């Protein structure tokens, strides 16, 4: 009711945080799938703004019934640590996740409805827009105007460029993508498409009041896709104004990695988007043992960046180990 008054006269102080920005500690998304028998849940954990951590994020999962209050639930968890695929008990319709991040006293809480279906794999596709912070006008950022903008395949993006991201996934009509990144400004365009300005871009009505390009470096993008009955997420790294040697592992950047299925020894690198760098590489054969036996975390198969993002493994558990990795050009 007060909206009219606010529209005319009132104002509001801006907040220091934005839901699109990957910063601090938070549960950014949870993938929920149901294959007909068991429920699979995968959180995406942001620790100090990154999708990896040297310290363990303590996870505790509980089944919740319709009358259970997720805000005050304090009974013993049904599962601690990473989720194990399980059949849901009859009384449950939701799952509560308590995640205690390193340095935090209070656990962060997330709930998710029990899934009823599965979603396929998701690929993030960036395309370049012929727009730049230096020259873009506010009217070009309207939804209709952006829909008419043509895109070209991305190459090396510079700070201040605008990109279009598409979450390629087979989803239902009610699906929505929720975009987050370590920098830049998001402008959603369609349920699974959004534009990203590589900088801080503030629009006030018909006027652009701030347009500052981000610094060159790596940008991590995380998208969560939710629809009735299932959800999933996907992360990708994008070079901005830099040209490094390396390769992508499931769209996440691994510096110095060579393409193909390789044996790689990981070392910690805070400047790398995954917190890891590849050294001492060699060709690998899929029939060989994958090397995960020596890890202190329950994972199998070639290295996946999601092990870090899900909290299955800390970076410290991966570093100094030699694992199989499938490295690709994107």
């Amino acid at each position, binding site marked *: 009711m007060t909206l009219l008054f606010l529209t005319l006269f009132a104002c509001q102080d801006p907040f220091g945080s934005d839901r699109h920005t990957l910063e601090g500690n938070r*549960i950014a998304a949870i993938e929920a799938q149901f294959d007909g028998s068991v429920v699979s849940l995968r959180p995406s954990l942001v620790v100090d703004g990154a999708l990896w951590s040297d310290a363990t994020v303590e996870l505790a999962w509980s089944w919740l019934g319709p009358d259970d209050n997720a805000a005050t639930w304090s009974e013993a968890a049904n599962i601690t640590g990473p989720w194990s695929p399980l059949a849901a008990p009859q009384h449950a319709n939701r799952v509560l996740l308590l995640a205690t991040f390193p340095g935090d006293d209070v656990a962060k809480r997330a709930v998710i409805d029990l899934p009823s279906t599965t979603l396929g794999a998701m690929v993030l596709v960036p395309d370049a827009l012929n727009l730049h912070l230096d020259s873009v006008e506010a009217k070009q950022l309207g939804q209709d105007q952006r829909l008419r903008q043509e895109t070209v395949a991305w190459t090396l993006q510079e700070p201040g460029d605008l990109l279009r991201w598409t979450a390629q996934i087979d989803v239902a009509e009610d699906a929505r993508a929720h975009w987050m990144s370590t920098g830049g400004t998001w402008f959603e365009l*369609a349920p699974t498409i959004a534009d990203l300005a590589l900088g801080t871009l503030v629009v006030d009505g018909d006027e652009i009041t701030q347009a500052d390009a981000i610094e060159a470096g790596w940008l991590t993008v995380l998208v969560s896709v939710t629809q009735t009955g299932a959800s999933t997420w996907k992360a990708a790294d994008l070079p901005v104004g830099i040209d490094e040697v390396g390769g992508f592992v499931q769209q996440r950047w691994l510096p110095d990695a060579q393409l193909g299925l390789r044996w790689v020894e990981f070392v910690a690198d805070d400047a790398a988007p995954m917190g890891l760098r590849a050294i001492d590489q060699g060709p690998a054969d899929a029939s060989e043992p994958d090397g995960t036996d020596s890890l202190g975390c329950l994972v199998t198969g070639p290295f996946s960046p999601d092990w870090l993002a899900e909290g299955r493994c800390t970076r410290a558990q991966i570093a100094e180990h030699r694992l199989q990795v499938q490295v690709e050009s994107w």
Partner: protein
Amino acid sequence: MVVVWLIAALAGEVIVRDRTDGDPVDQALIEVGGRDSTTSKDGRTSLAFEKGDVLQISAPGYEPGQFTVGNATRAKVFLAAHPTALEVVVEGLKDTPNITRHVVDAEMAMETAGNHEDAVRLVQSLPGVAVQREYAPGAGDLVIRGSSPGDSRYYLDGVEIPYLYHYNQYASVFPASQLDQLELFPSAFGASYGDSVGAIVEARSKLTPPESVHGTASASFVMGGGSVQAPIHDEWWASAAARRSYLDIAGESSTQYPRWPRFADYNLRLEHGDEDKGTGLFGWGASDGWTRAAGELDALDPVAADDSPLLDFAQGFQVLGARHHWRQPNRDGRLVLAVVHHGRAAELSAGGEEDFQQWRFTSRTDTTWRINGWSIDAGWEFIADQSALTVESSPNGILVAEEAPWLGRGQDAQVSGWRGQGALYSTASQSVGNLRIMPGLRLAADTSDIGLLPEPRLATRYHISDQSVLKLGGGRYHQRADSDELLVQPDLATTGSWQVAGGLEQTIANRLEFGLEGWAKWIDHPVIHPIDAPPQTVEKGRAKGMEFTSRYRLRERFYVWAWLALSQSEVLVDRAYRPADGDQPISGGLVGSWDLGHWNLGLRYRYGAGMPWTPIVGSVFDASSDRWIPVAGDDNSTRFPAYQKIDLRIAHRFEFKGWQAQVSLEAWIVPKTSAQLFPVWNYDFTEQGWVRGPTVFPLLSGNARF
């Protein structure tokens, strides 16, 4: 000076009336062509005159004037009181069964700064009424002596009105131009009112018959309208007033408001007689409507904004009724019959609707007999309503809970039913020496509850001197929930309350009034209204407070009042008392208006300690919808910052032959710390900020009278 409104004459009668109240002017001397005559007590006299004659009129205590005779056979002249004969208005010291009684009238409604010619808004400047942040959510609600807004009843000419304000707080639903006076009984009121554990606000329409056609036109930053009163024939006269907002005409629609708020009200009356005896038919009503995006689009991303449903909202009420009143030396009274239709419809474009329709027949009789020092008030009240509520809930309902409370509660319903309420009351009043004792009893019944609810009331006033009165009173009060709430939850308990109030009224030199009063309430089963859950009763409530008031008034020249109120209001939940929604530990203010001929200066200052609210202490991330669900802390465990507001007003009156116009410029000044309207949070509720209103704001308005 003289204001001459009408009628000319040939030969015969001259009528002289007081310009302010229309009372006859006795001993007025009329001179024309060497002839003269003096009015009698009825303000009339006979005198030969011809068309074109200029009558010279003078009367003790009045400004002299003159009148040019036209074609009519009667000359009617209105005289303005002489500046040295100002009327001092003393509202206190009256022996009424209502222990606390505050009165405001049309003059104060029109001239108080910050009031925007709004009688109901003026109530918010009275002692005991919480000082709230204007234009913040809920600011239009009257929180009186710690009670919740729904605890109080609001009447116009004895008929309860369904809602007080158009579109939040922009204007009240009846124009001040039609009002004679408005009374507030903050608590411990007499037996003539019931079904309320809060306060009573009763507005009364003007009953003075117009001597000629006259009217008003007004325009403010929100609404424009006009009124007209006219004699018809014999003792018949009519009054009509209508107002309409023009935001929807002047402003372009926006994505947030595809249909701008549009609100209107009207007041039609056909009367026979005057203040002493009369019968009237009345019809009045109000309507509000708008279409808005349910979510705040600025806070949503473009895709989510596209998905945000639209709320189509309309509400209104219509009243059709009849009233008969009489006033004689030994008895007076009124009989009111009315049919009230109240409708409220809210529909969300993405599914979900709430529709409430109520037909209410209401009647009440209030009589007073004065015999041999006794004064007996007696009357009855009967209400029958037929209500129907349909709710198709929606996940977006919480976004529109302010307009559609049942959508906010997320509860489907399709219920209808009738309800009857009745009450008989009587109050006897007798003096024993200097002590006036006024015991009363109200017997109430409600078809939604079993049993008869006896409500004993008592008011006593001890006249220490002709300028000092000690008073003490109280009684038992009950209140049933609203009909729509009872249809959904018929087992909601009846709220009961014991109330007491007492204090001292002191007048100095028959001019300056002081009052010091204490009050207390003990409430069982108070109803609370969570925004996201059905209404529920809690165990107990209690409130107490103290008020100091002072006022001084010279009618049509100057008035000032000041007050300071201390109070505490709590409810018992889970065996612990916590602040009630209406808890305001301290409030105070100063209101003044000074008429300097054609200029009027006004000032209003209000201070109110911060009202309590429930903080958000955390959040739960709902990964299925990618939203954060707020986690509320302890109820009412934090408070808004204190609120202060200064309103300044300067008005100039332009007088022309037969009509006058007034232009007023107002400015409000709010300290920055008081400009917070309501809290807002960031996406995951880890940061809290404020939406702030302007600290300085000018307003221009104008009106004309003929």
